[in-house]
């Protein structure tokens, strides 16, 4: 057997060159099968690595071949990848090929095989594939431990935005396995009985410690997980530049962008590579790096900055000349020297650059933050410059920066230094003005330009021009701005000088006239603009040496802060501006002309608003003269001067109840709240009264008055309501009042003449006994004729009919016929004549000055009197006599008059019949009076109805009972 093998090998070795020779000669392709195929797994990179050889090549022979590689997953029939790999093959040369798997290799077994074909141009005929190699299995699961659940890939590093496939391998074959990405469940695809895969798309960076992905068996079972390290994408360095400060060291800077460092991956590194010298350096910092300039005077540099991490590499390059990238260091030791009132010398130093290099330095002088001077100075090491035209006692800032003279690249950083110039005497007289009311002088502080130092005090010299006398000198310490001088009615000249440490200023002179100064001048208006008030005037005399415009800065209701402005003699207008001016405030400007004698004469006054506003309040309106057709409104207390704008007039609003028709001179308008009313416009601001006419009587009106300016009218306040009176009421008042007066007069007169009236209108009833007529009759006609006496009347008979049997009233009196009588109905008492032979037409009851009930008389002619059964006997008893009856009547009559109101009393007239034959009781039956005689009334008395017909009740009044009781009597 061994012999056979040796023989076979020898035969093949002999045959191979022969075959090779034949192939070269015959140009026939040979099936060169890949051999020694080995497959390995790189879990870190998730790669399958293949290596193989082709032994069937001749010695030193090189052929271009193509290898077709098949990869299957889980089983050989499940081919997932086919690729043709072209390469040049040499005898015994090991070939390599890698394939990166998207699915973690630990989750599935992979099978690989390949075949080859000659793909060389030297072999014209089309080749054919060799036989497939045998399947090689790559199974990373064999290396797993005994854990029940695995998740892959472990610790994978990817860039943000990548797609990642993860998988788990379960050895417990349970279905209740859930997977989570940062606590959020994810869903995938089951590849095998125990393998599931999840594709994470566009993964994002969460934290440097990695993104946690884990799977677990539900209800606290096994847990497996991975950390997915998601790196931010490495950015290309931005703003890469290099410069030198001393031509010895280059400093390159850049913007690194995001840090891509993770637990799995350090932050990106930066490497600086110079192509001309071939040198490179690893930078220690993220955003800058130093490079030592070569001593061989290399001028041109080509730098490449490479940023790199595990996943990516980025680079950026620049090419420059060294001398064109010089950025000098900051100058130092900048100091002022020999500082005077108007000049100073600045000195400074710079760091030298190379040998005999010149720097261009820029010296700037700043005052109050603004550059006022700028000078360029070329220096090598020491710089010096004389600054002139400075202001005394002023703070300045000097600053210096330098640049490389040969080629300007950048200014160095600035170095600054403050200094103050020395003081000088004030260069200008103080601006002085006076307030005549206050009799005070107001020197304004000198501007810093003219003060030339700190003003310590002001000297005020007062000279009386009318009475030459000694000068009065006042020293006012600064910072006082005014002083008060008490002057007499003389003319004065006042000199004011300002003093600082160095000396006095020129004097400012004003002259104050001794006159009253209350001259009437022209007044006008001035318009305000954003720049201020543009004031103009007309010069009066030709010898004016200047003009002064004065005003108060604040509102009129505040104390005046006097301001003024001096103007030249040829000026007739100026713009007054002040930061204190406010919209809606009235400012009054007074323009003075300064004469050659330095005396001020008021030329004009002007008033204006910086910006007019609508009135802020409305006038207090008083209504008067209200008639049925008109009323008057007045608001005379309203001040137009203190309003936030020039009052142009007033609007009078009138609301009528109907709201339909407006009185004449009114027009309809719509208020802001959409209500319709009438409006009348008064365009004269001085007219502060208005008569609203043509109104309807007995109507309700509402009025409201508001001023208006050019901007608008005042606020809409509440309307005042009035009601016009009746049209005739005034007439009635004119009539009724005099009538009442007249009645009063009449009443007074009647009261005073009541005795006379009584005698005239209702004289006392004459006493028949005292009548003269009686004596006359007695003496001439009938000596027996006399006056009938009531006491002589005796009742003839009483007949009671219709006796009721209801209630019983116990009479306590002595009259037996009545004490036991019971009444349920009114009883009628008939007065019958006692004489049996009386056959007259009927009894006629005659009373002398007596009263009877009219109602009773209605029942029967002088015959029937209703009697109420309630009449108590004790009252009835005494009345049986005529005297008692008369007394009771009189008493009850008077009582009734006093107790019953007049309005409730129904008056019944009681007739009185005078008996022509009364007075003789014997003659009465025999000479019954004729009915005609009964028509004579001697007297009528008014008796209330209640007295006459009292209701049949137990509470009947005494008067009614008494009256009814009289019905029992007749005479």
């Amino acid at each position: 057997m061994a012999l056979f093998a040796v023989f076979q090998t020898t035969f093949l070795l002999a045959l191979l060159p022969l075959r090779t020779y034949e192939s070269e000669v015959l140009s026939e392709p040979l099936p060169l099968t890949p051999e020694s195929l080995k497959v390995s797994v790189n879990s870190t990179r998730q790669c399958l690595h293949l290596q193989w050889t082709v032994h069937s090549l001749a010695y030193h022979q090189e052929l271009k071949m193509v290898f077709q590689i098949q990869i299957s997953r889980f089983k050989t029939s499940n081919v997932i990848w086919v690729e043709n790999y072209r390469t040049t093959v040499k005898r015994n040369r090991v070939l390599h090929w890698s394939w990166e798997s998207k699915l973690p290799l630990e989750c599935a077994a992979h099978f690989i095989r390949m075949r080859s074909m000659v793909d060389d141009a030297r072999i014209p005929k089309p080749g054919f594939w060799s036989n497939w190699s045998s399947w090689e299995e790559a199974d990373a699961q064999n290396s797993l431990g005994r854990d029940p659940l695995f998740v892959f890939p472990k610790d994978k590093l990817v860039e943000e935005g990548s797609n990642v496939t993860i998988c788990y391998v379960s050895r417990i074959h349970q279905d209740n396995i859930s997977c989570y990405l940062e606590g959020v469940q994810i869903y995938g695809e089951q590849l095998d009985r125990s393998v599931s895969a999840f594709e994470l798309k566009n993964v994002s960076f969460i934290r440097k410690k990695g993104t946690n992905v884990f799977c677990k068996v539900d209800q606290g079972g096994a847990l497996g997980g991975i950390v997915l390290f998601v790196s931010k994408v490495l950015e290309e360095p931005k703003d890469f530049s290099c410069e030198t400060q001393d031509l010895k060291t280059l400093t390159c800077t850049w913007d690194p962008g995001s840090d891509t460092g993770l637990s799995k991956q350090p932050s990106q590194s930066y490497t600086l590579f110079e192509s001309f010298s071939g040198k490179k350096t690893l930078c220690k910092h993220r955003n800058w790096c130093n490079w030592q300039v070569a001593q061989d005077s290399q001028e041109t540099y080509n730098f490449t900055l490479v940023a790199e991490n595990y996943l990516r590499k980025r680079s950026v390059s620049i090419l420059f000349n060294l001398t064109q990238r010089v950025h000098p260091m900051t100058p130092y030791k900048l100091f002022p020297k020999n500082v005077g009132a108007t000049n100073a010398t600045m000195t400074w130093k710079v760091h030298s650059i190379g040998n005999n290099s010149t720097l261009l330095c820029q010296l700037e002088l700043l005052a109050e933050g603004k550059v006022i001077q700028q000078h360029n100075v070329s220096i090598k090491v020491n710089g010096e410059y004389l600054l002139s035209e400075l202001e005394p006692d002023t703070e300045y800032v000097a600053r210096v920066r330098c640049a490389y003279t040969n080629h300007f690249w950048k200014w160095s950083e600035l170095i600054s230094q403050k200094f103050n110039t020395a003081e000088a005497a004030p260069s200008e007289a103080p601006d002085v003005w006076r307030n005549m009311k206050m009799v005070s002088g107001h020197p304004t502080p000198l501007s810093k330009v003219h003060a030339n130092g700190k003003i310590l005090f002001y000297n005020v010299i007062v000279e009386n021009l009318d009475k030459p006398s000694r000068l009065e000198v006042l020293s006012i310490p600064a910072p006082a701005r005014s002083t008060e001088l008490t002057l007499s009615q003389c003319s004065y000249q006042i000199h004011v000088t300002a003093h600082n440490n160095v000396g006095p200023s020129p004097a400012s002179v004003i002259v104050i006239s001794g006159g009253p100064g209350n001259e009437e001048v022209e007044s006008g208006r001035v318009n305000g603009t954003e720049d201020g008030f543009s004031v103009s005037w007309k010069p009066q005399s030709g010898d004016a040496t200047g003009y002064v415009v004065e005003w108060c800065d604040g509102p009129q209701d505040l104390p005046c802060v006097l301001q003024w402005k001096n103007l030249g003699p040829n000026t007739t207008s100026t713009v007054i501006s002040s930061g204190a001016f406010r919209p809606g405030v009235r400012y009054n400007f007074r323009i003075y002309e300064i004469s050659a004698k330095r005396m001020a004469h008021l030329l004009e006054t002007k008033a204006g608003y910086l910006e007019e506003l609508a009135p802020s309040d409305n006038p207090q309106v008083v209504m008067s003269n209200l008639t049925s057709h008109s009323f008057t409104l007045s608001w005379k207390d309203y001040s137009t001067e203190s309003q936030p704008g020039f009052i142009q007039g007033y609007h009078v609003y009138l609301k009528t109840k109907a709201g339909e028709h407006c009185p004449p001179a009114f027009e309809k308008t719509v208020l802001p709240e959409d209500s319709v009313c009438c409006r009348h416009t008064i365009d004269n601001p001085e007219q502060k009264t208005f008569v609203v006419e043509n109104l309807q009587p007995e109507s309700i009106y509402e009025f409201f008055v508001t001023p208006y300016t050019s901007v608008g009218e005042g606020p809409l306040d509440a309307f005042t309501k009035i009601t016009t009176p009746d049209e005739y009421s005034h007439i009635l008042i004119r009539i009724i009042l005099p009538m009442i007066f007249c009645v009063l007069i009449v009443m007074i007169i009647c009261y005073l003449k009541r005795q006379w009236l009584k005698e005239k209108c209702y004289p006392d009833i004459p006493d028949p006994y005292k009548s003269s007529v009686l004596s006359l009759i007695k003496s001439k006609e009938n000596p027996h004729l006399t006056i009938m006496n009531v006491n002589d009347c005796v009742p003839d008979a009483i007949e009671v009919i219709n006796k009721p049997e209801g209630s019983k009233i116990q009479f306590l009196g002595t009259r037996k016929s009545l004490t036991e009588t019971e009444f349920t109905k009114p009883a009628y008492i008939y007065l019958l004549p006692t004489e049996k032979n009386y056959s007259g037409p009927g009894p006629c009851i005659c009373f002398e000055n007596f009263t009877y009930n009219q109602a009773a008389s209605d029942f029967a002619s002088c015959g029937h009197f209703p009697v109420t059964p309630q009449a108590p006997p004790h009252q009835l008893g005494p009345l049986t006599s005529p005297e008692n009856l008369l007394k009771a009547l009189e008493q009850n009559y008077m009582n009734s008059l006093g107790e019953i109101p007049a309005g409730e009393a129904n008056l019944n007239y009681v007739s009185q019949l005078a008996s022509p034959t009364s007075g003789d009781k014997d003659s009465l039956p025999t000479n019954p009076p004729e009915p005609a005689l009964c028509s004579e009334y001697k007297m009528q008395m008014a008796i209330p109805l209640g007295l006459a017909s009292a209701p049949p009740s137990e509470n009947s009044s005494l008067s009614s009972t008494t009256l009814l009781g009289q019905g029992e009597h007749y005479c």
Partner: protein
Amino acid sequence: MRAQRMRRTPLSVILGLLFLSMAATSKCLGKYHELLLQLRRQADHMQDTSTLLDPYIRIQGLDTPGLKERCRECPRAFPSEDALRGLSRQGFLRTLNATLGLVLHRLTALYQDLPEAQQLVGLNIRGFRSNIHCMSLLLRSSSEAETPEPTQPGPGPTPPPTPPSDAFQHKLKSCRFLRGYHCFMHSVGQVLREWGESRSRSRSRRHSPRRAPGDTAPSGPCRGGARRMWPFRRDRRLMPRGHLPR
């Protein structure tokens, strides 16, 4: 949470620096009770999970359902409270010192994960070990004749961990380790508190053990576990003469 940590940080730094300075100057408090009180307070502070475990969980992204529970398991890598009670005082201190030495070593490995917290906790542990050293000296001076007792033979702290197989396992293991550290310090605090109770008991045996006001043990990071009422076998014998309660 952040504000709470900021409030605790200066306290931790002060305590750490204080204990470090004590260790550096090798000056020990000569009074047993003061030293015991310090140890107790340090143990209470070190069992607080907000100093180490909570920030670790937050930084590593383990504060999600499903993972947080895995950090609550107290590993057996540390001696249990019962095991600590079973030790003599010297043995307890030796075990405590050794365990904290290993914790310190492990924390060094966690420096990349918790740079700030690790530094503070490291200072605390060093200060605590310094006080352990002083307590050991104090006990030794009072019982020179005592036979040295070996370190607790139980499970004890594990040797330095092998490099984790992957980052996920490393996170979980470190998390459990920190949980175990806090549990262990809770147990240490309980045992030290019973040292104080032994003082009361020795003063008045009629009284049951009782904590002093203000000496309330904080709720620890581990649950369960019965406490022994009288833990030490040679308690009285270990009292330093002139310093320990009689």
